[in-house]
Every structure is written in structure tokens, then in C-alpha cells.
């Protein structure tokens, strides 16, 4: 370990030290406010540390990590989302029973796991990052243990995630057996010497795909998602939807690009089929869904179906559009779950779409943010979602993926139906006009999200230029 290594690991060290310091403060006094303030500070510090790291990239810490501009960008997204989720979590969790402080420890471990995934280029760091993330998520999902549905979601998540990681591990094992390397580049160079993928490697890749597909909730590995979304506390759902999925997408992109997976016809066809089926399944399931969290879960299945297009495009443009898409998806999803979580705090449960009836008359700001989030998810112009979809289609079309682009367009139309249903629900009048107020910090989060959605939608050039400058 050199000094440079330590500098480049600064964000990770900060994220890793946070749980330990929180534990120490808990031994002194159990004060949630202290923990909360400290958590915000640590996320802020680790965000700042990214700028310290920036001059030294790309830096490889052999053999586990590679810190390049690409991973730095994902790190920024993750830490930013982590910061907002911390605020939402505090507002949400401070209403709950005892032992609230541990929540933040686990939150940091989850963020650490996700960050490791982003820089991993080795099976060991891949697996450990994934599991660090998963285990923290089991805990967070079931964190409010007095709720039976939280526990149910936790058990389901744990069992299926474990199965998926068993598959993932077995797949890694097979690839290791066939290539003798666990490093992505090593695997890629071993593949380069083969003219065709041997069946054992294909089997390995399919099993690896289970692990990734599970986390991204692609059909047919998607079944857990709605149940977990519904059962988990709203901020945790936001965490799953944003940080977890973003990090897994990052490593999937890296692995896929390293091994040039799109060049293999079998993998290409299989992934295309998964993408198209995911789009249709997600959107069809969302159509009649009365539970908003479940609806968003189904819509997320469809969105990650769209995102597979970037993988299959196999071009730098594909990667750039993927980063833009995930950034806009994360900010938009945070908006939606932010509203759900804030509303759950101030008026009990806010899962059902019916709970949003007349929201516009109770709290116009929240209703506008929610509408904006829905419009962005649907891909209406001047929101982040539109630009993201536009880049996506462009990348797909440039690589000649007409079928995929076509089904994306069809599915966008289908999805419009249920997104707009939420919007119209909020604007229908309801008899009970009890104004609901939210804490100041909650409003702040929403303002940041609104700015984010509109910024990406109106001035996408700024962000897309940054993305395009990545090598």
C-alpha cells in the first residue's frame, strides 16, 4: 500500500470509518440527532474527497480495485443519493421505536458496499461488495421489526438474494475454472485467446447473469422486487432503487465491456430477449397496480429492461447514455420515494395510490414534485427522463438495435398510462382537505430533486459533456 493508494481510497476510508465512529458515539450516548448530523457530515466529506481523488485517476490498486473517472462518477452519484437518503431516513426513522441509531451504521455499510462494487474489477471485490450491500439491505428492509410485512420482505429478500448469490458464485467458480483468473482483465485476456466461448464459460456467464439480473430485477429474476419494495420502509426502498441498482449496473457495465460480451451471439440474443421481456412484463404488471410502491417496482423492472440496450449497444455512446440514464433515473426515483417516505411520516401510510387523492390541494409542492417525478419516469420533454430516453434510443439506433429501440418506444407509450394515473389522482378533489406539512429538511431534499430533474432535462449538455469527457 502506497500513500497514493490511501489517497485514492479516501472516500472508502471515510465511508468505512463512519460506522465505527457512530458505534463509538452510541457507547457514549444514544442520541439520534448526533448520529444524524454526523452521518450527513461523513457523506459530505466523502463527496468532497472525490475531488481530492480526481487528479490521481486512473489509479489501479492491484488486483482488486480500479479507480477511474467512470467509477468516480458513479461514486459521486451513490454518495449524493446516500446523502439525500440519510435525510429522508432520519425523518422517517425518528418516528419509529427504539434503536434508531444502528440504522445509520448499516446505511453506511450499504453505501460502502455499493461504492466497492463501482470500483471492483476482480471477482473477490465484486462478490464482497455485492454481499456487503446485500446483507446491509436485508437488515434495513427488516429494520422496523415490529411490522410483520417488513419482516416478511426481509425474509423473502434474504432467501432469494442468497440463492442468487449462490448462482453468482457458482458461475464465478466456473469461469475461474475455465480461465484461471478472477480479474476482469485476466478473464478478458483468457477469452481473447479462445475463438469461441466454451460451454463451461457460457454456463458461468449465465449463472453470473443470475446474480446481476437479480439485483437489477430483470425478468425472470424480478419476482422479489415488488414485495420487497412494498414491505421495506420507504427510505430503504429508495436505497434499493437507487444506490443498489446503480452500483450493480456499474459493475455489470464494466464486466460486460471488459469481456466484450456483446460480441457473442448467444449472450447477445439472450440479453435482448431479457430486455424486451423485462420491458413488457414490468409495464404490463404496473398497469393496474393500486399500490404505488409496487407500481414503481414494476416500472423499475421496465426501466432496467431499457437500460440493457446500452449494454448491448457495445459502444462508448452506450456507456455514456447508461450513465446519464442511471443518473436521471436515480434522481427521479429519489423524488418519488422521497414523497412516499415524507408522506408516510406525516399522514401514516402512503402506499396506496388512493392515498394521493387530492394531494395537490393539501400540499401543492409535494404534488408538483411527484408529478414531475412521474413525468420524468414517463419521459416527457423538459424532464431528465426524456433526455435519458432520447440518448438511450439514439445509442441503440446507432448500433442498429432497431427491435429493442422499437419496443422501448412502445413501452414508453404503455407506461404513460399508469404514470399519468398517479398524476391525475393527485389533482382530483377529495373531501378531506387536511393540509400536510413536512419538515424543513424534507422540503430541502425535494427542492434538490426538483432542481436535479429539471437541470438534467433542460441543461443536459452540462452533464452529458462531463460524461462524454470520460475515457
Amino acid at each position, binding site marked *: 500500500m502506497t500513500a497514493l493508494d490511501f489517497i485514492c481510497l479516501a472516500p472508502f476510508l471515510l465511508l468505512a470509518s463512519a460506522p465505527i465512529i457512530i458505534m463509538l458515539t452510541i457507547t457514549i450516548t444514544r442520541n439520534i440527532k448526533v448520529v444524524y448530523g454526523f452521518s450527513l457530515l461523513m457523506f459530505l466529506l466523502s463527496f468532497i474527497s472525490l475531488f481530492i481523488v480526481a487528479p490521481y485517476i486512473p489509479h489501479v490498486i492491484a488486483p482488486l480495485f480500479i479507480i477511474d473517472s467512470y467509477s468516480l462518477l458513479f461514486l459521486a452519484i451513490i454518495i449524493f443519493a446516500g446523502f439525500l437518503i440519510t435525510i429522508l431516513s432520519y425523518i422517517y426513522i425518528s418516528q419509529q421505536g427504539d434503536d434508531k441509531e444502528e440504522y445509520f451504521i448499516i446505511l453506511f455499510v450499504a453505501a460502502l458496499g455499493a461504492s466497492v462494487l463501482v470500483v471492483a474489477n476482480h471477482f473477490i471485490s465484486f462478490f464482497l461488495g455485492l454481499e456487503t450491500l446485500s446483507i446491509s439491505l436485508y437488515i434495513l428492509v427488516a429494520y422496523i421489526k415490529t411490522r410483520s410485512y417488513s419482516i416478511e420482505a426481509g*425474509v*423473502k429478500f434474504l*432467501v*432469494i438474494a442468497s*440463492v*442468487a448469490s449462490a*448462482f453468482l458464485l457458482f458461475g464465478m467458480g466456473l469461469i475461474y475454472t475455465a480461465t484461471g483468473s478472477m480479474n476482469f482483465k485476466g478473464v478478458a485476456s483468457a477469452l481473447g485467446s479462445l475463438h469461441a466461448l466454451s*460451454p463451461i464459460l*457460457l*454456463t458461468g456467464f*449465465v*449463472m453470473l*447473469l*443470475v446474480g446481476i439480473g*437479480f439485483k437489477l430485477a430483470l*425478468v*425472470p*429474476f424480478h*419476482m*422479489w422486487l*415488488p*414485495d420487497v419494495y412494498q414491505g421495506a420502509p420507504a427510505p430503504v426502498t429508495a436505497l434499493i432503487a437507487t444506490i443498489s441498482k446503480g452500483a450493480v449496473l456499474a459493475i455489470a457495465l464494466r464486466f460486460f465491456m471488459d469481456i466484450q460480451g456483446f460480441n457473442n*451471439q*448467444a*449472450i447477445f*440474443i*439472450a440479453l435482448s430477449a*431479457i430486455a424486451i421481456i423485462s420491458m413488457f*412484463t414490468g409495464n*404490463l*404488471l404496473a*398497469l*393496474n397496480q393500486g399500490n404505488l410502491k409496487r407500481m414503481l417496482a414494476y416500472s423499475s423492472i421496465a426501466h432496467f429492461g431499457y437500460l440493457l440496450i446500452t449494454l448491448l449497444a457495445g459502444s462508448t*455512446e452506450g456507456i455514456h447514455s447508461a450513465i446519464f440514464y442511471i443518473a436521471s433515473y436515480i434522481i427521479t426515483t429519489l423524488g418519488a420515494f422521497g414523497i412516499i417516505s415524507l408522506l408516510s411520516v406525516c399522514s401514516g401510510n402512503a402506499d396506496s395510490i388512493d392515498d394521493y387523492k387530492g394531494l395537490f390541494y393539501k400540499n401543492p409542492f409535494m404534488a408538483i414534485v411527484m408529478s414531475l417525478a412521474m413525468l420524468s419516469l414517463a419521459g416527457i420533454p423538459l424532464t431528465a427522463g426524456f*433526455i435519458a430516453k*432520447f*440518448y438511450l434510443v*439514439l445509442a441503440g439506433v*446507432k448500433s442498429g438495435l432497431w427491435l429493442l429501440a422499437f419496443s422501448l418506444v412502445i413501452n414508453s407509450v*404503455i407506461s404513460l398510462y399508469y404514470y399519468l394515473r398517479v398524476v391525475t389522482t393527485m389533482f382530483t378533489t377529495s373531501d378531506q382537505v387536511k393540509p400536510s406539512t413536512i419538515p424543513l429538511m424534507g422540503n430541502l431534499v425535494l427542492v434538490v430533486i426538483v432542481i436535479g430533474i429539471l437541470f438534467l432535462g*433542460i*441543461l*443536459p*449538455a452540462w452533464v*452529458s459533456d462531463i460524461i462524454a469527457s470520460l475515457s
Partner: protein
Amino acid sequence: MTAYIPFIPAIPLLSSLIIILFGRILSKKIVAFLGVGSVSLSAIITIIAGINFISSTPENGSYTVTVWNWLTTGGFSANIAFSVDALSLIFCFVITFVGALIHLYSVEFMDHDEGFARFFAYMNLFVSSMLILVLADNLLLMYLGWEGVGLCSYLLIGFWYKEPENGYAARKAFIVTRVGDTAMIIGLFLLFINLGTLNINELMQQASLKWAVSSPLAILSAALLLGGALGKSAQLPLQTWLPDAMAGPSPVSALIHAATMVTAGVYLIARTHVLFALAPAVQAAVAVIGAATLIIAGFSALTQHDFKRVLAYSTISQIGYMFLALGVGAWSAAVFHFMIHAFFKALLFLGAGAVIHLLHHEHDMFKMGGLWKKLPIIFITFLIGSASLAALPLISAGFYSKDAILWFAWSSTNGSKWLWLAAYFGAFITSIYTFRMIFVTFFGEAKTEPTHKPGKLMTIPLVVLAIISLIGGFIELPENFGHFQIFSRFLSTTLPSVQLAGESHNELLFQILSAIASLLGIYLAYLLYFKKSSFAESFSNSQLANFFYKGWQFDWLYDKVFVKPLVWLSEINKNDFVDKIYTAIAKATEFLNSLLSRTQQGRLRWYVMVLTAGVVIILTFMLNL
């Protein structure tokens, strides 16, 4: 130096947003201040920009201000960028200046309306969209403004939405213009696919480089753009919506349906004149359509009873003149007539609106009369506006602008004696129906009593517009007297000057001819409607008059040709397969939804089973490929 250009459309937009968001809280005074103030501020900025532009005209005649780059990927870029040149400055000036006066007038006109804030929000939004339309440096942004003004027009025609008829009129306007818009958007795609850009300047350069004169693509895209222009500017055959659009409040008719929005088509053609020059056939069509429209609408105006419908048909007719001018290549004459027309037609609409307002919303001219004593200021200003419309020789601004068109219709290389004859005949009819309006409304015996005198806020705009309608013509005098052509010299940096076919020795002859037409028309109107000749009575009861009254039965025709067959088709299809396809799609979606939903029944083992089965299927598939 140029950084303030974006504020011209931004200020009204901002004010509109403020009124929309806080309209309920704000008092009427603040709303009025915001509404009028924002447009006035834009007008001031426009004038500053104009002065700057004249004092230091850029070399190529225009400069561009990029506000931001919305998207750029692989050859396609969508900018929010404004391009300032002589043409857009003139349009901006008219929009903001006339707009500010109309806003001021509206403060009094709409005073007792419950939708006061809503009205100003829409009006400001309209001004902003219209400014975006004329300032846009690419066709995509222009299309945004184009749709924006369409939306505002729709909202404002149906402003008094409690009357269902107003809603129908709004929808009619929206749908008819939509026919043109569809053609236009196809045209935009065509241009983008073939020339690879939507930036207007680049587009024009590319077009003249890549396309030969009369090449099929040039003709097709010019024709498609013309379609959009026809819809927006209410020209044949898409003119039917404008008379019905008079359902909106009078200031709306003045601003949107007379002075600005309906001339967007003129702007579009002038802006893309290079393209039209490449397609002479289409340009000739523009002239013919203009000539036909001006006569047809003139006859319709002759028979109307509703005050505002006369003006509506006259607007269609006057825009016909502008199209005629565009068609013969007299670009600056068209723009000149647009400007003068905006002044006097806004004046006429505001005057008419004031009369209607003060007479308990009485629209029928024949139920008015003798108003000249009771409403002297309105009468005088209205008379000045009418003189301009009827092109009264020498003293009215309308004379100079219309005379230029008549002259070029004859003398331009694209002109012909037939076009001139149509325009000449149109001028004659124009002066008849204009003074018919004057004699019927302001003279004769009084049939109604105005409730009160118009207030200051209403009279000031009338007076200002009346003064401009008198003197506005002197900025562009014909060659044979004065040869004072500041206007066309200003425009020459942007638009090419007209190509004359022959020598100009007989220009005076044409001026005398058109003066005769104008005076003759007034005299005829005097005979028929002041002296109450029996012919006027019998004519207005004739079949022919009824035919004109119904706007040459275009509505009836469209009803028979398009609407009825469609209704018939959809009716016989009610149980037919087309419907079945749609219900089948809906059913299939629902079925798939319930099928998939059944998979999500919460059983953990089933979830794992699906996951495993998925692995097995994918693996089997991949190993056997």
C-alpha cells in the same frame, strides 16, 4: 451587448408563470401591473435592441444569442438560441408594442371579469410564445413557439368556457390549424433528414447549395411548410376557423387573431424565403392562394352582421394581400403591410370591442347606429382605422402599404395582370365593406344606448394606434413621391428586394387607379348604406348574400367532404373489426396483466422456482445455439 435579447420573451413568460402560480393571492392591481408591465418592458428592450441594431448592423445582417444548448448528440443539436435580424426585430416590435397597448386596454375591458388573472396569464404566455416564434434561430424552437401560440389561442378563444359554443369555436380553431401543423412538422422532418440541420441560417445555405431550383425535394418541403402557414394564417382552404375564433374577448381578437399570431404564416414564408425561391411553383401557389383568399374573404365580409366577423373576414382578406406579396417576391412589401395592418386592425378590433362592451355585448351592427355623437373618440379613431383599411389615398398608412403590393403584383417578375386585377378588385370590395361598417354603426338612427363613456385605459391605446395608423405609412414612400424608403432599406439586410419586370414609368397611373377604387368603394357604401338604397335590402336577402354570409359555404363543404364521411365510417365500423382490434388490444393487455399478476402471489418458493426455471431456459437456449 446582445445578452439582453433573451429577456424579450423571458419577461412575459416569467410574469405569466407568476400570475399562474400566485394569481389567486395577488390583487387585481398587481396582476394588471405585471401583465402590462412585462410586455411594456419587452417593448422597451426591443426598441433598444432595434436602435443598437441600426447603429451597428452586423455584417451578415443578423446575430445569434445562444441561451443554452438543450441537447447535442451526433449531428443533432437543439439549441435555445435567438437570432436577431431586421425581420425578427420588426415582428418583435409589432408584437410587443401593439401587445402592450392591447394589454393596457384589457385592464379596463376585463375589469369585471372573474377570470382577470387567468386572462393576463394566458395573454402574457401568448406574447412570450409569439416572441419565441419570431426570434428562434432554429425551426425546432420556432415550432415550440408555433405550438405555444396555438395553445394560447385555443385557451383564449374558449376563455369564456361556460358557453359551450365558445368551446366548440376553440376546438375548431385548434383542429383546423392542426391540419396545417401536421404538414409543417412533416416538412421539418424532411428538411432535417435531407439537410441535417434545423438551424434556419444553415438550412437556407444548405438548401441553396444542395438543391437545384424546382427540385422535387425543395418543392415538397416548401409545400409542406406552406401547409403550416396556411393553417396558422387562415388562408384558403384552412380559413374557416378564424371567423369563429371571434368568440374570444375582443383584445384577444385584436392581438392574436388580427395583429400577430395569424401573421405567423407570413413570417414563416418570409423567414424561409430561400426555400420558396427554390420552389417557384410553390411560390406562385402562394400568390394565387393569397389572391383567391382576399377576394373570397372580402365578399364574405360584405354580408356579415356581426361586427367582429366583418373584421375577421377582413383580416383573412388582408393576410391574403400579404401572401400575394410574398408570392410575387415582394418580401418587404408583405412585411410592411403586416406592420401597418397590425396597427390599424388592432385599432379596429379594439374600437369594435369597446363598442360591443359599452352596448351590453351587442354584436349585431344592424342593431346599433348613430353612435358617432355618443362615442366621439371611438368614432374618430375607428374612422381613422377604417380609412387605413380602405386605403384612403395619401393620408392613411394603409394606402402606402397596399399600394406597394398592388404595384408589385403587376410589376414584379412573378407578378401578372390577373393577380393585379384580383388585388385591385379586392381593394374595391374592401373599401365597400369597411364603410358599410362605418355607416351602419355610427350613422343612422340610434337603436341602443351605451352604458357609460370609455375610460382612459381604453381610449389611450385607441388614440395611440390611430396616430400610428395615420403616420405609419410615411416610413416607406413609393419611388415616385419622396422615394423615402427607410423600411425596405432596413429590411434589405435580411430579405432580398423585389425583382421588377419592366420600367417603372406608369407607377403613378396605378396609384391613381387604386385611389379611384378606394373612393369609389366608399361612395358605393355611402349610396347603399347611408342613403339606404333598396338594393342593399334586397341584396342582403338574396341567396348569393347568404352564400357569402356563410363564408362561401366552406364549413358546409368540409362537413360534407370530411366530417360526414368520417362519422359515417366510424359508425359503420362501430361493431366492425377496427374497433375489435382496439378492444382486443385492451383485452389482451388486461389478460396479460392478470396473468402476470397471478405470478406475483407472494409465495417465496414460487419466486425461487421462476428464477431457477429462468436459468434453466436461458442456459439450455445458450448451450444449444
